[in-house]
């Protein structure tokens, strides 16, 4: 595998919405994420940070510039190729927990692993239980997803994001819908993932406390990166 030192490299990304009037949402956004780095992206509502995240996640392909994930340029790749990259290299955590309510907790965590198909069903199941255990959720594995509380769901979503050992974990306000205590738990989990698993994290957040405690913070305004901080200092 191509061992690029950068997990993610964002090169001059521009994006405009054309409906009803042309609005330039992202203007020449460029930055890069090293392996094992814990980044946060902050900014006011409508500054384009979520739009940026979905471009980085390869789900939104309507933009100019390039997003290089683990040395692979994603610009212009066909949809199934992008789906495979998402499956293997990117883990997602959303503001709303977005588990599949018809499936059990364990099945929810296992699905991306089964999709990747590198391991047998038994191995994927063992991995999934290990992940749940790390997040103190192993005892809930057999429950149906809709029976969990919000904080629990978010932990399951994190376990799912980790199942394929992704290069980078992206989160869109993962703590936005949680109370202070659960938000704290989730932050600690992220911190641990970055430290112990050497995974990169790119988390979009509103929460200045959260952002302040990440390794690096990117601040956006009107579609541009205007600054941020390096290290855990206030901006």
């Amino acid at each position, binding site marked *: 595998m191509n061992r690029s030192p950068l997990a993610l490299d964002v090169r001059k990304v521009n994006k405009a919405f054309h409906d009803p009037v042309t609005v330039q949402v992202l203007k020449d956004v460029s930055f890069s994420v090293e392996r094992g780095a814990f980044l946060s992206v902050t900014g006011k509502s409508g500054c384009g940070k*979520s739009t940026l995240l*979905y471009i980085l*996640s390869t*789900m*939104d392909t309507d933009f100019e510039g390039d997003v290089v994930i683990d040395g692979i340029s994603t610009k212009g790749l066909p*949809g*199934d190729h*992008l*789906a*495979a990259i*998402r*499956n*293997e290299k990117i883990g*997602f955590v*959303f*503001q*709303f927990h*977005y*588990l*599949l*309510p*018809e*499936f059990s907790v364990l*099945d929810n965590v296992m*699905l*991306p692993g*089964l*999709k*990747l*198909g590198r391991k047998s069903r038994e191995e994927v199941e063992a991995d999934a239980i290990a992940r749940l255990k790390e997040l103190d959720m192993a005892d809930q594995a057999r429950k149906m997803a809709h029976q969990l509380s919000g904080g629990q769901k978010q932990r399951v979503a994190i376990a*799912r994001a980790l199942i*394929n050992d992704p290069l980078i974990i992206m989160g*869109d306000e993962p703590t936005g819908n949680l109370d202070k205590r659960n938000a704290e738990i989730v932050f600690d989990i992220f911190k641990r993932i970055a430290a112990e698993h050497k995974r990169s994290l790119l988390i979009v957040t509103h929460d200045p406390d959260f952002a302040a405690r990440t390794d690096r913070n990117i601040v956006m305004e009107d579609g541009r990166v205007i600054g941020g901080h390096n290290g855990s200092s206030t901006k």
Partner: protein
Amino acid sequence: MKLLFSIAVTLLRAKLRQSIVAAVGVMFSITMFVTLLGFMNGLNDLLDGMILNRTPHIRLYNELQASPRQPVQVAWEAHQGKDRPAAHHFIRSVKPKDDLPRLRNAEAIMDVLDRDPRVMAVSPRLVAQVFFNAGTVDLNAQVNGIDVNDEIRYYRFGDYLTEGDPHDLAAGNNVIILGKGLADMMAATVGEAVQVTTASGERSILRVVGIFQSGIADYDKVQCYTNIKTVQKLLARPGSYYTDVNVKLHDLEQAPAMARELSARFGVDAVDIQTANAQFETGSDVRNIISYAVGIVLLIVAGFGIYNILNMMIYEKLDAIAILKATGFSGPDVQRIFLLLSMIIGLLGGAAGLIGGFGLQRLIDSIPFETAALPTITTYPIDYSLKYYIIAVVFALLTTWIAGWFPARKASRVDPVEIIRGK
């Protein structure tokens, strides 16, 4: 694929009631399709059988008619030339020669046909016009001298007897089987004797050994059967005297061509079953078209049911689709999941429909159906042909595939960003 299948099954189970409704729709239409076709074709076979079983595929005979080219005409044409002036003859209203309707060389023709690989059976017939003397009344009738064993074997002669044993006809001399109508008019029953007068005035006494009923009343009033020898004796003709040769082929479709061929080869008249009974084929075809049309309409309706339910399911499952896509399932994967879902409904509904169809066929098959036309039929006829089951399954899968394809494509095109951000 296994993974996609298990996802489809889980989604189905989560929406169990809707899925069952969709499957029941398919089941109902397949049940009706199979039953309708089985019943229609059973009926078709029955109606066709009334005529076609008893009709030879090709009948060779000798029509009594005036020679198409009269000697005077032959002579006149032969003399037309450049040194002779044009001439015209005024002979009109030529009558046929006093000739017998005998099929000449019948035995040689039968020999040739027996060796023909296309031919299943060849049997001679001797048909004569007679009068039955019932008291002071003379009843006109047609007596058919038949090769009894061949007729039982190839033309199901025995199926149409309401009384008596057809084998008695083969065994005895001076025995006869009367049509039901004819027997009723003479008040004759099995075992009694009837008096017959031939066209040339000879009288004989024949013993009634059976009554037959063809289902066509007019036919039963004027027809009776006996063995060939008895008719030859009635007419005082030698043992090689036949009026018809009936041919049954392996392939019914060859009849028209072969009839033309035999007619030209032996210099006799030949009529094929298609020409003689064109109306039956038309009737069967129309009934078939109607039953297929109704069956297919039922399936299309079921297909719309599946389409609706899948469409609703996709709206309810937009979140799930977005998640699947976000975690690495591609558009085609999502499409396959929903297509599989539809096919599972089609397969389960189709299988249940086949069982239901078979059950309904059995039910119809057990309903009493007494008809004067067919003494051997006691219940409604059903054609249990495997063909209809196969057609039904193929159509069920095809309609569910098409009904699933459009919603599945829609699901594959769901933009996950819109769903996730829109919340």
